[in-house]
């Protein structure tokens, strides 16, 4: 392509973007002559260049637009219609430019439609209400076609509304050019007096802007990329040299090499900087979009932009552009109400969309906020239920914030009617996946009637990634630090050990069960390894706890080396199909290393694990629900083919011990376990304790002591509702429940603990120092939990009274019986835990009784609310040690008081 033409295209496209923005500003502030001058100058330049390059179509369009703008300069009032027309003219010019770029010549066609409209506007414009500034005296109707200021001749009569050459020349000379414009030459707008100081400041700004413009040059992106590659190579070579010099003490190269090293580092930094661009570049088109939307939707919208100069890598910038535009559209369409609605709500008619960007750590935070109606929780609920993402019961238990997260689920759009703006089924899920792709996150906050805000967090650059270098199967791999949560060392004899449920390896980490995946087997690098020798191997290793979206899992690796900042290089097309890798790179020592893609691993894990792989978001919601009304149950077999189950949270560990290690002492079976003798108890008499092979055990620990419950086989871990439907007379069995479609016996751990240690209960009494037994009132509507926790509470030395509801609890409290502490469930039919707390506090007789809430919901909101209504403590339902600790603390308080 002709150099001249290329230059013209880049320059014109940029100018047009500026015109877009400026026009919108101008419409809002029609008296700002400075903006108008700027637009006028830009359009005029475009027109001039088009004429020079012989592009008649563009020239005619630019001319017609310029004429109308000339009228504005003369004081014609600025109408929305006129601005719209000029904007569509600019769109047409852009379309022609696109064509021009592809075909290198102006496309054939006519723009009579637009030009006629523009000319009509220009002619019909009402006479200027006020004399235009003296410097730009109106001479629009001057019949001469020769100019006087400089000699120039137009070879035809002036078209209607055409500005005389003189005026053009004058305007051209007077408008502030890009350079050397002293601030004083800014044409005095009609309102000069009104803004004495402001324009002065502004022109100062402009002056410095122009200076910047003068100091910058245009560089082809490819040139920069090439430079970047060369610098990377330089860094590698330097590293090699450093390595060589390190081997030779007293080398005379040492000093110059150190110098070279520093220079290289600076050079690298400098080149990285050239890739950074202000985020404002991605926002440039937004004012125009918002303006068009406002017109289309009959809303009044103001777009505020803060932190437009926040810089980020241009690659990231490109990727974030579309999601941002989409979200701003959403805010304008769904978020903001119509002026009438806003008036009715007592809000200003003009809605505001606020975009802000700022740095935080190695990330950039972008916030899109509006002061509209907020997310419609009810609609989202309905949609979530109708699309099968959650059941009504689940939804009822969720907080608003949890429900709002559903908008990111795939195919989720609540727009009732499809408008041209949004609601076409591509919604926030696409936004989220785009942001996920660049390793970012997006969150939403919404308050009913006062607006919603989206918070996007993205890394500053994709080119350089901080990674953790690990080893698996003898090779090294890089895992992006961004998704690494923590590192856990697993060893056979340490606290953290890899356990197995059937063939699925898991890790218990702070009461959460973490699915594990061995990198070596995932990458199929363990083929041909001798299986027999790897038993030890299976329990040892480093676990890289990784989070992708809301999915957390552990990647088991053989070793962890260090962290390294790496420059990501794209993979060869021959390797791109491997989902486990996102790229490769050259390490400081010169070797090539593959970069693990945590997204790929998460997907692989999803297909390996038996768990259903719903969308991540739905999974997370499920997880929340799981805390709420489903329970993780460990299913096993003991003595009979029927499955038995026990809440997983009560189980400390799953073990398989060598049957030959089982010893008999004092008529009891014991096994040496972690330096202690651990008694073994059978679930029932039918269970055979094995004499050879391995014996599966469920280990329960409490206060330093452990017992092993002997079972035949550990079957699975399932999440299900725990409803004991048929209670049982058999000791040790609470009753039967349906678990995953099978009638399952639920085991009562409270029964087995005293069997293992006859002094289990007594010991606890002693531990409490033989002081007065405190009485405790335990309120829970679920018989299961009453059964489950009563033995635990008794074991802790409390005299326990249980009731099934808050009303009963109040009765007990008012009956005059001494109650030292109340432990209550939150979710109960009728009067719930919060109501109970309020009632207890309100009654002078009972207001000093400490009250501890027990709940599946331990979200910060719930805890906050708990504190407000007067709970003394808030404990998760399965957190036994937490409950005991809270009880000790509260009763100690009460005694001291």
């Amino acid at each position, binding site marked *: 392509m002709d150099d001249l033409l290329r230059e013209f295209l880049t320059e014109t496209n940029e100018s047009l973007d500026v015109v877009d923005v400026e026009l919108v500003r101008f419409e809002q502030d029609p008296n700002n002559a400075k903006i108008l001058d700027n637009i006028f100058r830009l359009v005029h330049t475009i027109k001039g260049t088009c004429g020079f390059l012989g592009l008649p179509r563009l020239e005619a369009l630019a001319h017609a637009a310029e004429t109308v703008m000339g009228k504005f300069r003369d004081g014609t009032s600025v109408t929305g219609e006129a601005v719209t027309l000029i904007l569509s003219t600019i769109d047409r010019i852009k379309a022609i430019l696109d064509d021009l770029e592809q075909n290198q010549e102006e496309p054939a066609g006519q723009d009579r439609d637009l030009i006629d409209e523009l000319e009509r506007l220009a002619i019909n414009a009402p006479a200027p209400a006020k004399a235009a500034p003296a410097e730009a005296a109106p001479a629009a109707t001057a019949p001469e076609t020769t100019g006087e200021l400089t000699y120039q001749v137009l070879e035809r009569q002036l078209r209607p509304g055409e500005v005389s050459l003189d005026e053009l020349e004058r305007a051209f000379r007077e408008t502030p050019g890009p350079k050397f414009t002293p601030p004083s030459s800014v044409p005095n707008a009609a309102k000069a007096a009104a803004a004495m100081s402001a324009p002065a400041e502004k022109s100062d700004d402009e002056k410095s802007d122009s200076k910047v413009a003068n100091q910058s040059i245009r560089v082809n992106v490819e040139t920069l990329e090439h430079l970047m590659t060369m610098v990377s190579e330089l860094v590698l070579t330097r590293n090699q040299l450093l390595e060589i010099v390190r081997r030779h003490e007293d080398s005379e190269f040492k000093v110059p090499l150190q110098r070279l090293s520093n220079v290289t580092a600076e050079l690298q930094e400098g080149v990285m900087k050239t890739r950074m661009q202000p985020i404002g570049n991605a926002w440039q088109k937004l004012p125009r979009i918002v303006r068009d939307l406002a017109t289309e939707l009959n809303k009044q919208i103001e777009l505020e932009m803060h932190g437009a100069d926040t810089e980020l890598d241009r690659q990231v910038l490109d990727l974030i552009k579309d999601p941002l535009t989409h979200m701003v559209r959403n805010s304008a369409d769904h978020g903001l109400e119509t002026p009438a609605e806003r008036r009715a709500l007592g809000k200003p008619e003009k809605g505001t969309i606020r975009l802000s960007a700022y740095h935080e750590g190695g990330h950039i935070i972008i916030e899109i906020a509006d002061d509209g109606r907020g997310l419609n929780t009810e609609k989202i609920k309905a949609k979530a239920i109708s699309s099968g993402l959650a059941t009504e019961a689940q939804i009822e238990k969720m907080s608003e914030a949890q429900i709002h997260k559903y908008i990111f689920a795939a195919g989720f759009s609540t727009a009732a009617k499809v408008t041209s703006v949004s609601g076409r089924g591509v919604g926030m899920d696409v936004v989220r996946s785009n942001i996920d792709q660049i390793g970012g996150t997006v969150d939403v906050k919404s308050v009913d009637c006062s607006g919603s805000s989206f918070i996007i967090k993205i890394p500053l650059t994709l080119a350089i990634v901080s990674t953790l270098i690990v080893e698996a199967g003898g*090779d090294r791999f890089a895992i992006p630090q961004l998704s690494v949560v923590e590192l856990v060392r697993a060893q056979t004899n340490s606290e953290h050990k890899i356990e197995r449920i059937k063939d699925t390896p898991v890790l218990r980490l702070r009461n959460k069960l973490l699915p594990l995946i061995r990198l070596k087997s995932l990458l199929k690098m363990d083929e041909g390894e001798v299986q027999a020798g790897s038993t030890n191997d299976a329990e040892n290793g480093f676990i890289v706890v990784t989070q992708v979206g809301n999915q957390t899992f552990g990647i088991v690796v053989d070793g962890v080396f260090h962290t390294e900042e790496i420059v990501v290089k794209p993979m*060869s097309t021959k390797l791109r*199909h491997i989902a486990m890798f996102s790229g490769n790179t*050259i390490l400081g020592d*010169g070797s090539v290393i593959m970069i693990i893609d945590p997204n790929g691993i998460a997907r692989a894990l999803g297909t390996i694990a038996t768990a259903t792989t719903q969308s991540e978001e739905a999974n997370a919601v499920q997880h929340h629900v799981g805390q709420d009304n489903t329970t993780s149950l460990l299913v096993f077999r003991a003595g009979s083919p029927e499955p038995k189950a026990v809440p997983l949270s009560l189980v400390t560990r799953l073990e398989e011990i060598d049957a030959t290690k089982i010893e008999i002492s004092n008529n009891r079976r014991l096994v040496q376990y972690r330096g202690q003798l651990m008694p073994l108890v059978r679930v029932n008499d039918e269970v055979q304790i094995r004499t050879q092979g391995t014996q599966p055990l469920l280990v329960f620990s409490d206060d330093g002591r452990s017992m092993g419950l002997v079972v035949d086989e550990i079957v699975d871990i399932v999440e299900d509702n725990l409803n004991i439907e048929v209670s049982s007379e058999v000791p040790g069995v609470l009753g039967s429940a349906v678990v995953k479609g099978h009638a399952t016996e639920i085991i009562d751990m409270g029964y087995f603990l005293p069997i293992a240690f006859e002094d289990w209960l007594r010991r606890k009494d002693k531990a409490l120092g033989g002081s007065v037994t405190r009485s405790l009132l335990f309120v829970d509507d679920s018989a299961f939990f009453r059964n489950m926790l009563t033995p635990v509470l008794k074991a802790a030395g409390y005299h326990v009274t249980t009731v099934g509801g808050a009303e009963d609890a109040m009765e007990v409290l008012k009956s005059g019986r001494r109650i030292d502490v109340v432990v209550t469930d939150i979710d109960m039919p009728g009067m719930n835990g919060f109501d109970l707390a309020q009632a207890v506090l309100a009654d002078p007789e009972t207001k000093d009784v400490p009250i501890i809430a027990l709940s599946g919901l331990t979200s910060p909101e719930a805890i906050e609310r708990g504190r407000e209504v007067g709970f003394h403590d808030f404990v998760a339902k399965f957190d036994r040690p937490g409950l005991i600790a809270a009880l000790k603390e509260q009763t100690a308080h009460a005694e001291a008081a």
Partner: protein
Amino acid sequence: METRMANDNNPGDMLTEYVTVMLGEQLFGLPISRVQDVFMLERLTRVPLSQPEIAGVLNLRGRIVTAIDMRRRLGLPKREDGRKPMAIGIESKGESYGLLIDSVGEVLKLDENNREPNPVNLDTRLARVSAGVHRLEGQLLVVLDVDRVLDMGEAIAA
């Protein structure tokens, strides 16, 4: 210079220069215009889950090069003398590849008119990547079609 190189490869011109390489007992020829460089193989990183023909990736002066095991590609048995393989650096569609071979021989100037089509009974794996055969004194030279060598059907392994 470059124009002349192109002419060398032009079928209209009689002579083509070939870099000869050995794989097992067989002599192969690669058009010199496609050969970027010849290097000793050091520090290869294997790539798990890749196609069997891909020996791994390596760093060649700051570029990441995909190494292709030519013995695997042609269905030859693994090399057993334990010597380090050599590699022929080639470029295709902006990406760098290294073809692992046993050893590199001299550069031969051969008359294109003497190139014969593949014998019908040529091993299919060889025939797939061969662009014909030259009869030399005492042995045959199989001309490798670089593009067909690299076309390994990426989708299959995915």
